[in-house]
């Protein structure tokens, strides 16, 4: 079976010369949820922007067996739903419903089919009530749900979420984890919130300095205190990943 998402030998340098990706190797199997951890500046957001061709470096990105190139950019963008770090960047239409409709409308869907897509996407994140509201009047948690719905409306094969818990209160995080768990889609979740990663993702990958430096079952990764410390990660005080001694 082909993996949902693969990145091989991915290298990218920002125009100012900063090497943000330095040979990234990553495979996410279909139906899995994988946490992408790592310190500030590790290159996580840069990697996310490569997964649907917004940034293009050298190396290859393969989504569901299809290698990203100039010809299939549109198809890749349909397959990969990206939820941005700042929901304000993602929501730009006058109402949430129109924002959710934006993606599928770009795919040429219209009429009742479009309405159904919008309802369904909002329904999956339990946010039907937000449909008529202007996005700039929503709370942080509501914005996050709306932003996820805009990506789901494209019916992606892979959902990439960049720091979905930032700005959410503890209950909001728990609700978000519950919502994401109900979604039947492959997920790459970038986060600094280790308990959130543990609650949501079977597998974790650690990135540092433009490279993948460790991967494994989330429980094991988070139990490895030395590994975490080396990459400026730490569990909240008194929190333990698994039952095995650390």
């Amino acid at each position, binding site marked *: 079976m082909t993996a949902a998402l693969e990145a091989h030998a991915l290298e990218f340098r920002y125009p100012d010369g900063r090497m943000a990706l330095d040979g990234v190797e990553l495979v996410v199997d279909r139906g899995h949820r994988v946490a992408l951890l790592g310190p500030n500046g590790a290159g996580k957001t840069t990697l996310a*922007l490569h997964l*649907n061709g*917004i940034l293009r470096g050298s190396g290859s990105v393969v989504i569901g067996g299809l290698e990203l190139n100039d010809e299939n950019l*549109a198809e890749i*963008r*349909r397959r*990969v*739903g*990206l939820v*941005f770090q*700042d929901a*304000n*960047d*993602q*929501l*730009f*239409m*006058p109402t949430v419903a*129109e924002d959710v*409709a*934006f*993606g599928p*409308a*770009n*795919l040429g869907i*219209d*009429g009742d089919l*479009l309405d159904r897509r919008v309802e369904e996407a909002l329904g999956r994140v339990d946010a039907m009530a937000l449909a008529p509201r*202007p*996005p*700039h009047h929503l709370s942080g948690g509501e*914005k996050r749900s709306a932003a996820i719905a*805009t*990506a789901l409306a*494209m019916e992606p094969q892979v959902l990439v979420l960049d720091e979905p818990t930032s700005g959410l209160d503890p209950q909001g995080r728990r609700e978000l984890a519950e919502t994401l768990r109900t979604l039947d889609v492959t997920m790459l979740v970038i986060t600094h919130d280790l308990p959130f990663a543990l609650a949501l993702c079977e597998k974790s990958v650690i990135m540092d300095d433009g490279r993948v430096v460790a991967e494994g079952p989330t429980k094991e990764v988070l139990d490895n205190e030395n590994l975490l410390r080396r990459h400026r990660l730490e569990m909240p005080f008194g929190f333990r990943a698994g039952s095995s001694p650390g």
Partner: protein
Amino acid sequence: MGAGHAHALYVHEHSLVHHLPPQVKVASAIAFVIIVATTPREDVWAFVAYGAAIGSVALFSRIELRFVLVRMLGILPFIAFASLLPFVASGEQVDVFGVAMSRSGLWAAWNVVAKASLGAATSIVLAATTEVPDILAGLNKLKVPALFTSIAGFMVRYLELMVEEIGRMRVAMASRGYDPRWIWQARPIAASTGALFIRSYERGERVYDAMLARGYTGEMPDLRRRDPSRRDWVVGSLLPASALIVALLARVIT
């Protein structure tokens, strides 16, 4: 605060004008402005009638006149320029309160002020009753090339982002004890203009990336699928039609 929302100029209301399909409103506004622009400046009362016409549209859309007038301050530079004309233009001189002014200069000044104010009032009423994505979709519908509408869309987007960033920076300054009440007191804001441009630019880039990620190809999808009915076009033609009657009457009378 979301990026790129049309709320700076938009007045949330439910009126007949708000609910007209955007292409009807855009076409109506363009036709009206063309008639205004081509009316000879000597037909003074025609301009008064135009003013009354756009004023009634504003009232009908439940926009406060004050809202329109305050936003019309944007044409101040034109007025400043126009006020020089009577003094610099040559030709026959007339006495105004004991000051000698050029007759043709006075007419030229009146021409600029009258047409600029009416044009500005029209765009303000259009913007107050139509959200930006709708204006763009309306232009698309009227067969304006997508390239122009995307450029226009991004200009509006960056302007709004900049206004938003100014708001944010002002909050940041106020919370550290600096609260400029007037723009000319805002030396730190002026000093941080560079940062402001970069912040707005980068934010705009991220919004654009988010649009690309959802398959944006340069043309706003048309989400309000209501095609204009004959009645919509009739309602929309009221403004330009009455302007046309005024213009023709003015020709006949003078």
